[in-house]
């Protein structure tokens, strides 16, 4: 929600911006920016075994750290959902029996819902476990834009790391609840460990933000914006609209938020 409004505000003031949905397991940004998109597949290389060359020696199965290859006396079983596409089996095979073929794991789409806004959406195919390569491709597609805003998945594991890698600054969106604070601490640790300057946005605030603000003060994290809990704001978002479009007075807040992020980048971690 913060990413969408931030990008909308920039684009609305004719500043070119690319918004990338890195929450590839549940991408939502396209719901807020309807329009046509150009879509292509994201693939990863997976091994293909040439039965005429394979001697069933077991070297590939022994090499694979993920248990994706099981070598039987007369054939090789390949479990593609366990494969990380490292290419190691191909190197390990002494008979040159393994080559690679692309396998689709998701899609990338690019749309231009506003003249100055490019929206890139990575979508993991349902049932596929490997989100990271889709995120990597989505980010690559946005590479040449002067301003890139990434919307990440929740959590602190590999999907978030992949999205954060290489970012100049990071906004952590939290809520003033014990859950929000608990997760904020974890996320702040990750960003700090990666050497990325951090600022905090408190969303759905009911005014009881003291603990969150105390934590931010202790850790030296600036609170960049506070968005109150308000049934009208909730209703705007739930119907797929943007706060800054439905209530233009919020554009100033998000414009200021962008400037504060710029200041974060200048100051460094």
């Amino acid at each position, binding site marked *: 929600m913060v990413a969408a409004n931030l990008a909308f505000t920039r684009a609305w003031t004719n500043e070119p911006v690319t918004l990338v949905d890195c*929450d*590839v*397991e*549940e991408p*939502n940004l396209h*719901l807020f920016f309807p329009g046509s998109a150009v879509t292509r597949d994201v693939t990863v290389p997976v091994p293909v075994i040439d039965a005429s060359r394979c001697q069933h020696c077991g070297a590939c199965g022994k*090499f694979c*750290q*993920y248990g994706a290859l099981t070598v039987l006396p007369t054939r090789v079983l390949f479990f593609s959902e366990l494969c*990380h*596409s*490292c*290419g*190691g089996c191909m*190197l*390990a095979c002494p008979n040159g029996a393994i080559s690679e073929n692309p396998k689709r794991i998701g899609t990338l789409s690019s749309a231009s819902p506003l003249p100055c806004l490019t929206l890139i959406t990575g979508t*993991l195919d*349902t*049932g*596929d*476990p*490997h*989100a990271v390569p889709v995120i990597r491709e989505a980010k690559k597609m946005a590479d040449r834009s002067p301003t890139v805003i990434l919307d990440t*998945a*929740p*959590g*602190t*594991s*590999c*999907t*978030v*790391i992949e999205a954060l*890698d290489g970012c100049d600054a990071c906004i952590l969106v939290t*809520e003033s*609840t*014990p*859950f929000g604070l*608990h*997760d904020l601490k*974890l*996320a702040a*640790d*990750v960003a700090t*460990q*990666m050497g990325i300057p951090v600022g905090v946005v408190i969303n759905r605030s*009911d005014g*009881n933000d003291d603990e969150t603000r105390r934590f931010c003060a202790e850790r030296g994290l600036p609170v960049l914006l506070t968005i109150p809990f308000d*049934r009208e704001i*909730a*209703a705007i*978002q*739930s*119907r*797929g609209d943007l706060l800054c479009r439905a209530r233009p007075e919020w554009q100033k807040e998000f414009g200021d938020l962008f400037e504060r992020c710029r200041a974060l980048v200048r100051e460094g971690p």
Partner: protein
Amino acid sequence: MIRLAVVSGKGGTGKTMLTAALSRLLPGSMVLADCDVDAANLELLLSPRILTTDPFIGSKTAVIDPARCTGCGKCAGYCRFGAIEQAGDTFRVNPLHCEGCSVCVSVCPDDAVTLQPRQTGEIRYSEIPRGHLVHAGLVPGAGNSGLLVHAVKKTALERDGNCDLLLVDGPPGTGCPLISTISGIDAVLVVTEPSVSGLHDLKRVVTVCRQFRPRIFVAVNRYDLNPALTKDIIEYCRNEKIPVAGTIPFDPAVINAVRKGIPVTDAGQSPAAQAIQILAANLYLEIKNLGTGL
């Protein structure tokens, strides 16, 4: 044992709040597993007393010995994960990106690279009023949360496999942690909220769950914030033949209970607590004959 997982697709829909309440309301002996290992919040509502803590070694990570590295860069050329960086005259591995595939180990002409186990989290086994809770902490930035999810579930089944119910608080998303959570599960309760994105995420998570063939149920949280979309969700569920186990109103009692660190159903009567009691009763009628060894 009946194995029930509470999942959501989208984060922040009230999944943990509902799981904590169900842990009070569903009958029989139970063991809880918090499989949202990135952000394990169940402990904030159940006041667990930790009995044991075990390190979790996820996968291995490559380590380059700078004394043996001659700086040829072959490893970096073969690494598909961009995990190897130049550091002066030699190279080093960035553990944030390393997936432990061992390609670098095999291509290094100087035997400078080894795979070493790396602790990426810990698994805690705790006492709660209704039995035991297995919860985990992932080292911030560590990958392999799918493996940790698997280890949490395995610990719960090994230590308390004779319970009537395994109740799992699942992760958001549809990727490896979710898939790891729902494999081997009898019933999934998907918690959603009435928004365009909530409905979109519900459909995706249902598609993934269907591949594992559990019974699927839906709960609509904060249903009164957008009654029109709640109707759309119920319509979708009817078409998909997914029972809606209950709808929960927006109620400040929920956030007040979270601030007190208790399930909302322990905080006296409130509209949300009442709705969750009805939901739990509906759900139990549907799931009580699932599973094995009752």
